[in-house]
């Protein structure tokens, strides 16, 4: 179990995160927040790249700093801007990272082909990475994070650059993996984690806003999410009065999904989704 105990992170006079309190047990956790909210900062503290200014992070009750390499052996990390050696092929690169992770040669010989198969890169395992597309490089990043079968997987925007088919494959990999490990994913693509996350963590104003299941979070907007058809000539005035979550162009107007506390004539109430909550909670940041 990973415990984040009243953690605050400041850079000089600027506070990035304040009093974060979380307990993570095996399962998938989606970290949702707009840019600059502190997602990457939190993840970096979990993988020991930065240290909390106040508070501590514990693994099974022991501070991770005290555990040192023993803790890091349990961590797999995919950074947002994933770096790699362009002159290496994926096999060589995974060998390099695997060695740093303290995985034996025999184990690497076993794991690397399996992982490359998982991320559909087995056929190009001998090709230099400088010839890879962005999506392929991202898949190498996922593979290296999975090396050593870590107990904690921290993935910062893992689906960036992946096409829908790859994203679907990625979701299924994660679902399999999450059975007996902590998987923490940050993403802007709500649909990627909505269906697989056990718990969603939302950060707002440097603090945890929500850390709960999807249904529980969506409950907060129960009775406030509606859909209706708005003609083109009324669209602008409608948009200025209501928070529009999504819109779909139709002939003569738009099918609009919006959030309001006051009922609107002609609007049909619909069950709230996670994206609705995201856009509602962060409407000010989004406008900014």
């Amino acid at each position: 179990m990973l415990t984040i105990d009243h953690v605050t992170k400041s850079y000089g006079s600027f506070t990035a995160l304040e009093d974060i309190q979380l307990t993570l047990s095996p399962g998938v956790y989606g970290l949702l927040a707009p840019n600059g909210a502190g997602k990457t900062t939190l993840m970096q503290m979990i993988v020991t790249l930065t240290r909390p200014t106040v508070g501590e992070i514990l693994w099974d009750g022991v501070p991770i700093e005290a555990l040192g390499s023993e803790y890091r052996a349990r961590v797999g990390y995919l950074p947002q801007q994933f770096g790699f050696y362009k002159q290496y092929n994926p096999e060589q690169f995974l060998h390099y990272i695997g060695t740093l992770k303290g995985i034996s040669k025999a184990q690497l010989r076993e794991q690397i082909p399996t992982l490359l198969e998982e991320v559909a890169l087995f056929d190009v395992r001998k090709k230099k990475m400088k010839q890879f597309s962005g999506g392929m490089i991202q898949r190498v990043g996922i593979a290296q994070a999975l090396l050593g079968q870590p107990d904690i997987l921290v993935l910062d925007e893992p689906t960036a650059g992946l096409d829908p088919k790859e994203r679907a494959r990625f979701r299924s990999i994660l679902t399999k993996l999450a059975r007996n490990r902590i998987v923490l994913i940050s993403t802007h693509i709500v649909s990627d984690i909505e269906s697989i996350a056990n718990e969603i963590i939302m950060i707002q104003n440097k603090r945890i806003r929500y850390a709960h299941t999807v249904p529980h979070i969506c409950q907060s907007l129960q009775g406030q999410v509606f859909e209706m058809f708005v003609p083109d000539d009324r669209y602008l005035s409608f948009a200025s009065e209501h928070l529009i979550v999504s819109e779909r162009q139709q002939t003569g107007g738009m099918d609009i999904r919006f959030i309001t506390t006051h009922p609107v004539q002609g609007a049909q109430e619909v069950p709230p989704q996670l994206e609705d909550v995201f856009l509602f909670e962060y409407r000010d940041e989004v406008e900014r």
Partner: protein
Amino acid sequence: MKIFWNECKKYRSLPLLLFVLSAHFITYMLLTDYDIRMMNQGKSTASSIIVHRELVDTYGPSMTKEDWEDVKRITALYQTKLDAYVQNDVELRQLGVNTFEEWQQLIWEENERGERASALHDDWIFESNESEDFWLWQEYDRLLSFYEGNETYIEQNRHGPGHRDAASPDYYEQLYEQSTIVAQPERIFLIVRNLTTSAVLIVVLVTLLITAPVHYQDRMQRMIPLQYSTTYGRRLPFVKWLASMTVSGILTFIMIVVYAYLMERNGHLYFVDVPIRELISGEIWFDWTIGEWLWMTVVVLFFFTFVSTIVGMWIGTYAKNALQLAGGVILAVIACAAILLPLSITRLFSAWYPPFYTWVQLGSIGLFAIILLGAIVYCEKKKDVVPFE
């Protein structure tokens, strides 16, 4: 160990190898070619080397007073040969010159005779193949004049080498009294000392050239977050330095082997057993031979490899952009050439400076390097790894 080899492999690239070869080639041509081929340079130097070799062959690494009596006889013999040349030359006889000494005096006269004698002299020594005796005689005469003038030399230099504070005022007297007056290695030691100085600069240059960019690349390729979040984590910087040191050490070793071969081919190593300290020059604190000086050079080269890998790591780890990287390396090399070489390397163990001068300098440099390495490793351990830095 695997991690160490992985880091070493980063240096295994063709561009880097070409880099190193080019740097060595250019610096060899600019800095050391002349000293390496010194033995084969023009008549003056070549002849003095021949004389030095003859002395070593005949009398061994050092000479006694009796041996110097022999040298007097040899010099007189060459003088006789030169006189014979003068007497057989029609033009010189027409000028009224009968001995070689008269000829030497006439060339300084500012009149028609003097100018003619001077022109004949220049042609003979520079153009003709018959002037070898002159060059050999000149060198023997020069060495003899130093030997015979040694008492004056001792008096003049009583408060010279052995440092001004008179740590050893009878420095020269001791040399003279030891009956091991040596005159051979003067030029050789000068050449060897030049080579030491040049080799240090080459080692520093090549080490910095290859070390700094390899450390810089990891940061630029955004590998640091991945590396530091693994099991091995922040122990990696020290291993990276070890890999730099190993690769640079191998390159330094190869350079030493190549230079040793070139020196052997060009006759420098002929004088390895000859003591450095003698009447004319070679004022060093230790009673070393040329060979021992060369071994000392080897140690110094590895020492500066050690220091340069740390400085290169520092530049590569903290340079924010390529300009800082290139600029940092260039500035470090200039600092070495402009400050380290003249103030330290050219004065290695020189008796013109206090006995502790070299030790303090090298010790300070070594200490600075170790502290810098410690600081880098410590900073890397403690620092927050922020993305997009």
